[in-house]
């Protein structure tokens, strides 16, 4: 680890001629190598020069940690054998120096976006990955709960193809029909379909589950007490994914996990459908919340959705077309067309000043299955027009891809442990 620390420190000594970090002034650069944490505390702002400062300070902190660990292990005879033991006994998490280093790296990456030194982050993460290849975790022997749910009998099912469509077939349908569609079997070739069934795959590619991921804890993003926090992947898997009845719902939602963990990106691919040409939006779809500020995308926006049974995403719209691919597990979806917006009671601005116009006030989770009479009654009183709104619904399972047209309201609830990827495009 000393030579890794040396490499990183050498690389940090050089600044590009136009490096924005220089805009932060001399006082902070003067102490960045000796007091990286103090400089990280200072650099908590968005303009590039502050993110550069946070980035470099994080890497200086990593150098400090690597040298400290190296000094500790050098004191032991037979250091190599010790090192392996040290890792296998990683269940003693209080002294997991590797987790400490990963915490600084992941925080540095997520807060700074690595504007100046992405190669150093990659190099360090690769080197650290070598240390974890022989680890085994208790979680790896467990498996996800992937029980198939009851078949949904519905009067208003989402259209479904019986076979995979190619891009041409999808475009042909798009030209005449702007409604949602479930395409069966289009992602069968994805390696992820086989590898994501086991928690061990996730843990192995995240440095033994040490990489930090953002987890939403709580019923749904409109419920009281909902919060987000970063936690090691192994904590997410052990606390929220594996247990049959966890205390709280934890959802790794709407997160580009593949940008953070490039090795996982190899298991999936962008569906051809994202390269189709959608028809121009109709008058109702043009009013979709957030549409005015959205840029033309060159590449689809990728998101991972990994969670237990029972995650609920409230009825909402997105200002993009969406292909939602179900890799593992099952989800219930209900969709309402843009023309029904007036019957769906969109929210306003919340007390913190954040616009919630893309979210409906109606709590779908109470209404689609085993609905209690009093909940249905209260809903009719609070939201009288809702019951007239036309919808379609369905259950997507492993291998299915759901097309959600721009501006369509959708409610999604997981019926088992579920792993989905969404592709937003326009």
């Amino acid at each position, binding site marked *: 680890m000393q030579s890794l620390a040396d490499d990183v420190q050498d690389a940090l000594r050089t600044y590009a001629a136009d490096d924005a970090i220089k805009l932060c002034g*001399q*006082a*902070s650069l003067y*102490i960045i190598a*000796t*007091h990286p944490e103090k400089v990280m*505390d*200072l650099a908590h702002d968005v303009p590039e020069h502050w993110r550069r400062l946070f980035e470099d300070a994080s890497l200086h902190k990593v150098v400090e940690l690597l040298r400290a660990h190296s000094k500790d292990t050098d004191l032991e005879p037979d250091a190599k054998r010790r090192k392996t033991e040290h890792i296998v006994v990683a269940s003693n998490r209080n002294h997991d120096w590797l987790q400490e280093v990963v915490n600084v790296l992941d925080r540095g990456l997520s807060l700074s976006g690595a504007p100046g030194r992405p190669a150093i982050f990659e190099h360090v993460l690769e080197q650290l990955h070598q240390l974890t290849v022989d680890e085994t975790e208790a979680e790896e022997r467990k498996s996800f709960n992937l029980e198939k749910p009851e078949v949904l009998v519905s009067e208003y099912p989402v259209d479904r193809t019986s076979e995979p469509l190619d891009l041409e077939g999808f475009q042909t349908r798009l030209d005449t029909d702007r409604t949602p569609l479930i395409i069966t079997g289009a992602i069968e070739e994805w390696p992820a379909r086989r590898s994501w069934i086991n928690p061990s795959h996730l843990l192995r590619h995240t440095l033994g589950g040490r990489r930090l991921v953002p987890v939403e804890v709580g019923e749904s993003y409109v419920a009281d007490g909902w919060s987000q926090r970063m936690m090691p992947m192994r904590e997410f898997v052990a606390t929220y994914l594996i247990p049959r009845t966890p205390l709280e719902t934890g959802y790794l939602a709407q997160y580009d996990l593949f940008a953070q963990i490039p090795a996982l990106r190899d298991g999936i691919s962008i569906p051809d459908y994202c390269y189709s040409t959608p028809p121009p939006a109709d008058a109702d779809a043009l009013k979709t919340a957030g549409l005015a500020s959205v840029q033309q995308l060159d590449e689809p926006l990728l998101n991972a959705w990994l969670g237990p049974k029972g995650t609920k995403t409230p009825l909402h719209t997105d200002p993009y077309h969406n292909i939602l691919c179900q890799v593992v597990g099952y989800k219930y979806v209900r969709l309402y067309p843009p023309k029904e917006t007036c019957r769906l009671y969109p929210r306003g601005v919340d007390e913190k000043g954040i616009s919630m116009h893309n979210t409906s006030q109606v709590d779908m989770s109470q209404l689609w299955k085993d609905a209690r009479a009093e909940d249905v009654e209260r809903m009719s009183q609070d939201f009288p027009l809702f019951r007239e709104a036309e919808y379609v619904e369905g259950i997507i399972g492993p291998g299915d891809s759901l097309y959600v047209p721009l501006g369509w309201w959708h409610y999604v609830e997981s019926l088992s442990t579920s792993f989905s990827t969404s592709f937003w495009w326009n």
Partner: protein
Amino acid sequence: MSELKTRTAGHRQTANDGASKPTSMLCAGLNAHSQLQAGTQADVRKFTPVEDISTPQKGADVLFAGWSTTVFSSGNKIWTQGFQPISSTLGGNAAHEDIQTRSVIGDHDGFLALLTTSGDLYTVFSSSDAQSATLQLMTTESSPSIALIAFAGTGRIALTFKQAPNGNLCHIAEFNTLDRFLAWYRDPSDSDCYPDKHHMLPGRPAQLLANTASFILLLENGEVYSWGDPRHQSLGRAINGEGTTKADVPGIVEALGGLKITKIASGGWMSAAFSEDGALYLWGAAGAPGHDRSIRCLREAGAGEVALVELLASAHDEPLDVIDVAIGDAHVAVATSDGRLFVVGDNKDGQLGLDSAEDFIEDWTEARGLSDVQRVVCGSNSTYVFVH
């Protein structure tokens, strides 16, 4: 990325009782540039006397306590400890009277400018090798007549103009950057240099301060106005709804309505005010967005509300009267009339002076071992206390 650093001379320490007991200065907090204690870069985690070998400390004042530099003054002499090297005398050697400082602004690199009660503006010029810096007088006969100036962490400048002795309309100008302010100050007639914003309020300004992203103004009649970034309840007032003023325009902090406020303080995302009868009010949040620790009394206040802070010597007493308050980036220090010091908030660098290893203290805590506390000044990550 700058911190609030504006102060009014009106609250300079004075020996009110006429007995002129010597005052000493103690400090605690971030010391990575040796700005608090020379010879070490370690945090100063308990209140320690400020050493200053080169100049006697008696009667010395802290003009500015920044992230990397502390600026001291005594009479017209100004000197620093820490990163930015300054040793200067206001008014040159010809000055016979003490020049009173009204406002001081700076950032994490150090001190930037100083405004005197007579309206003279001094800015800091660094030598080309950054080995020394001096204060240079910018004011000429054609310079605008300004009374107070403040510099927010976002880089915005706000200032108030001097008023006629019986004037009652306060004019406030805002500039998006310090450079734009200086360009206007040098040539106010150039239309390219005009202020980016202009506000008018009834009253006479007494204090103008800034924190990370907002400004706060105290008028002589005791009213308080705030404007800027409303996140984290940092304005202490509602910004939408009937009868409210938008965030980016000065609006009165109604929760303090009817009170005569004596002094305000501001820093990070918080501001405070205490009234002539010694009641202290605090609003905002300790810490940048995403920070997960919070000061309990602020957590419990709602949007548009301010927290009444009650500090007690012991559980059964009446709340103590507050005589001074200061705010850093995420910590608050309060001096009470019986000479005690109370602190709360961020203690990552030891700035609460409690000799504690805790990173953050949620509840008001007395800094024991101090008596006869007269005044308190906060830097972004440090605290200075003046005791008899």
